[in-house]
């Protein structure tokens, strides 16, 4: 059974603080993702990693960076938190898809509700 865990369920930070959100998966998945969920906007991809030390920008990378030093761990960093980064942050992992096969399914963690004041 795939398990994706996130370091905090709820987090409150002040404007300008550096914020680290940690995600760990236990299924040896190559792919890991960071999304944010906002009402009416769905799930928007912030960053994606397909291997250790490899990353790719998603749809809304501005104000964020990521780190993947180990296969099972993917960190999202808010360099200087701002109020418009108040959101639900979701981490996901998946196997790589290729050719005709592939499950395509992503497994999500429980989310971190971040409030920036």
């Amino acid at each position, binding site marked *: 059974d795939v398990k994706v865990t996130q370091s905090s369920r709820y987090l409150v930070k002040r404007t300008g603080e550096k914020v680290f959100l940690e995600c760990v998966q236990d299924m040896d998945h190559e792919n890991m993702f960071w999304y944010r*969920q906002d009402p009416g906007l*769905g799930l928007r991809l912030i960053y994606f990693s397909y291997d250790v030390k490899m990353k790719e920008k998603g749809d809304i990378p501005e104000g964020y960076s990521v780190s993947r030093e180990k296969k099972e761990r993917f960190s999202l960093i808010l360099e200087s938190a701002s109020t418009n980064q108040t959101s639900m942050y979701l981490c996901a992992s998946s196997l790589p898809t290729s050719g005709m096969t592939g499950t395509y*399914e992503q497994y999500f*963690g429980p989310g971190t509700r971040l409030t920036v004041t």
Partner: protein
Amino acid sequence: DQQVKQNSPSLSVQEGRISILNCDYTNSMFDYFLWYKKYPAEGPTFLISISSIKDKNEDGRFTVFLNKSAKHLSLHIVPSQPGDSAVYFCAGIRRGAQKLVFGQGTRLTINP
């Protein structure tokens, strides 16, 4: 560019009746579609999927229909139960791609 659209932000259905959630897409390159269900304060969980070479996939109370010519898919839940109250996201993906493209979500409320 919203490649996957769920035009109904919310839907209210009576318990025991059919719930129909709709999703439209613009990217004809999508080969696979997935539906996810999300409760508040939890991560989304996979519900059901369909390949673009099929027009229907069924799993218990859940059936997904795909109309490629209309670029439209729908999720049918029969019968609807209170535990089905959640936000539902549809997503598309191209074969060989790694990233899902999600819609905005539809909040389904099942009324007793």
